[in-house]
């Protein structure tokens, strides 16, 4: 066991902290899930990119620093400790990029990744449909071959698309073989939202932000990949109009690559929860100084704080394994369940500290509302518990 950071890692942390201290906007930006706030966040994203902090673990050619997973953890820790803004580009970076790295052609990687890290292309996810939420394989949006136009024509409806009203592109699964069963016959499409036939309707989220959208597609043409020997400019223009990631009918596997990616959402950076735990502790100390902290409530603060530390340590173990080539596999469902429910507990403890003021629309209530989405999105915790039971513990499916 070696819990020390190398000199290079320490230097990385220093550089990162110094830059964040100098650049994190104050006062805090308005929510990135509102129209005005999103614009402000885009400026921040572009500043991050210019200083090469947008995607530290990516190759330099795509805007990254070739940072190790340890350095990525350090970056995240510093980012949350600095109270830096939420990442409105995260659905591209965490959900789509891993699949592009694994399944994209070199041409696709070269085209899409730099535009993503520079916050030029702004990606939202098109997983859920009105009748396909937890049951992702039930998607009914379809894509029909159009040989004359040299591509596919997409029709259907996607929903719960976070920040969809502010983004430029959507990625998602469409049924290309209507005769195949469920997981089969799906293809992973990339679609610009300014394509003809796309309509986006924003709607309100629990916390009052216009953070969700429905995306309607009506006979939207997505062109085939340009031939390898195509004129580069022409090829770029074609890819600007969208494309297919991975093989036709193989979209399920492409999508699943995200869910097991170590840089995906399942490995939520511990820094986020440790920063929240730290703020919780500060709040409890204020109450304590006022002589208004009950011991029972203090114990709930202790429990939540301990769990944030436990999550950080569990993640260190995961990352050690990944760095040494051992994938956590289905154990990543442990992470998803734990961080999402921890986040709720941290905020509940804070609201309890606020007592009669808890209902006021402050940062803790906002944070609580957001935390409540954690057990629902990215695979409900019911699904995650099934995965733990069946794939980690080995209980029978039926």
């Amino acid at each position, binding site marked *: 066991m070696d819990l020390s950071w190398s000199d290079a890692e320490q230097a990385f942390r220093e550089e990162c902290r110094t830059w964040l201290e100098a650049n994190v906007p104050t006062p805090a930006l308005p929510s990135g899930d509102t129209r005005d706030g999103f614009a402000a966040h885009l400026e921040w994203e572009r500043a991050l990119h210019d200083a090469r902090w947008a995607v530290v673990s990516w190759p330099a050619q795509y805007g990254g620093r070739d940072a190790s997973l340890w350095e990525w953890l350090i970056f995240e820790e510093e980012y949350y400790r600095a109270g830096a803004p939420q990442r409105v580009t995260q659905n591209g970076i965490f959900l789509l990029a891993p699949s592009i790295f694994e399944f994209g052609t070199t041409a696709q990687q070269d085209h899409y990744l730099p535009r993503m890290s520079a916050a030029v292309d702004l990606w939202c996810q098109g997983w*859920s449909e009105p*009748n*396909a*939420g*937890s*049951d992702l394989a*039930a998607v009914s949006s379809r894509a029909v071959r159009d040989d004359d136009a040299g591509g596919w024509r997409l029709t259907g409806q996607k*929903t*719960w698309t976070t920040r969809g009203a502010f983004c430029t592109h959507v990625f998602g699964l469409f049924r290309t073989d209507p005769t195949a069963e469920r997981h089969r016959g799906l293809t992973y499409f990339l679609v610009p939202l300014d394509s003809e036939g796309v309509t986006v309707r924003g*709607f*309100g*989220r*629990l916390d*009052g932000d216009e953070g*969700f959208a429905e995306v309607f597609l009506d006979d939207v043409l997505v062109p085939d990949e340009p031939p390898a020997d195509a004129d580069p400019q022409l090829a770029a223009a074609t890819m600007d109009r969208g494309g297919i990631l991975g093989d036709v009918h193989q979209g399920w596997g492409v999508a699943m690559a995200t869910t097991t990616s170590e840089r995906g959402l399942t490995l939520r950076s511990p820094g986020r929860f440790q920063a929240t735990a730290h703020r919780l502790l500060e709040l409890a100390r204020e109450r304590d100084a006022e002589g208004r902290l*009950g*011991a*029972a*409530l203090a114990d709930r603060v202790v429990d939540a704080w301990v769990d944030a530390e436990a999550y950080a340590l569990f993640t260190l173990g995961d990352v050690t394994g990944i760095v040494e080539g051992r994938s956590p596999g289905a154990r990543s469902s442990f992470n998803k369940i734990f961080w999402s429910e921890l986040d709720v507990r941290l905020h509940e403890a804070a*609201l*309890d500290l*606020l*007592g*009669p*003021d*808890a*209902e*006021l*629309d402050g940062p803790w*209530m906002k944070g609580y*509302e957001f935390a*409540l*989405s954690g*057990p*629902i*999105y990215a695979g*409900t*915790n*019911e699904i995650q*518990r099934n995965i733990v039971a069946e794939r980690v513990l080995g209980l029978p499916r039926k």
Partner: protein
Amino acid sequence: MRFELTDDQVDLRDAVQALLEDLCPPEAVRSAWDGDGRVPSAWDALVEMGVLGALVPESAGGLGMTDEDVVPLLVECGRVGLPDPVAPSGYAAAAALTEALGDPAAAGSAAEWLGRIASGDVLIPVVDAAAPVVGAASADGFLWCAAEDAGPQVLVVAPDQVDLEPLQSVDGGRRPARVVRRGGEVLLTGDVARSVSVATADRLALGAAAELVGLGERMLDLTVGYVGERRQFGVPVGSFQAVKHQLADAALAVAFAGPLVSYAAHSMAHGDPDRSRHVSMAKLRASTAVRHAAAASLQCHGAIGYTVEYDLHLYMKRAWALSYEHGDPDAHRARLRDSLGLASGRN
């Protein structure tokens, strides 16, 4: 021994339930968010029906009922998420003024205010001036329980005798404000003021507990309906055991909170010496049970529950707010510790 509403009480409750279902549907609650936090048609109908004056003595123009009659009606107000201040004004303040009728010096003002409450004016009780006061902006007055250096006082305070600092609640139908008092008419002092202050705090807590039970039942109804319809993996979501057990647990919690609320109403009505203890039991369990029901409801709805276009959030946010108002769970546990003789448990 009979632990159940009388037939008359059931009839009244059912009539109020029908009225509120008709006049306070989710759209009306949404309008209250966009407006001033009131649903005028429902309020007027409740006044018409005598609900606001239910606790007011007949001599003062009311129905002369008791806590036992009124508390079940507050459950119904909670069930539809009515944002109007029925519980503070028509229950807690009305009961306090009824006590004040017994004091010759206060009787005149008290009778006048009781009449006004019965006809729909709003008198908001304030027992903890540090906490946000809901409905302050549209109040016709405040029934103020103050701990002055000279001793406890109960006052009636006019709107122009206070300074208001409006606050934003997570529930747009509530309009909390911090209220600072600059004047007022002293109604009661001394021991009577002290006991009226305690009883008013108890009725505010019990009123919130009753509304919480209604909200809990409403959220569960919504959720049971949704998971019975919504299909995933080829079956209704509600057929999954994980969903069933979450909702069974939440329903169980709410089902066991209800009797504590009824019992506390009985104790208040009969002046049981342990009534404050019974109120704390009711508010504690209603708060924890309905928070539990809110969490289960949201989780079982999945993403749709997380949108403002769906109705769940209207009831959930009210439930959150009421669970903290008039004594959060920790505050009532602390009062119960004292009441049960565990007062020195402070390590």
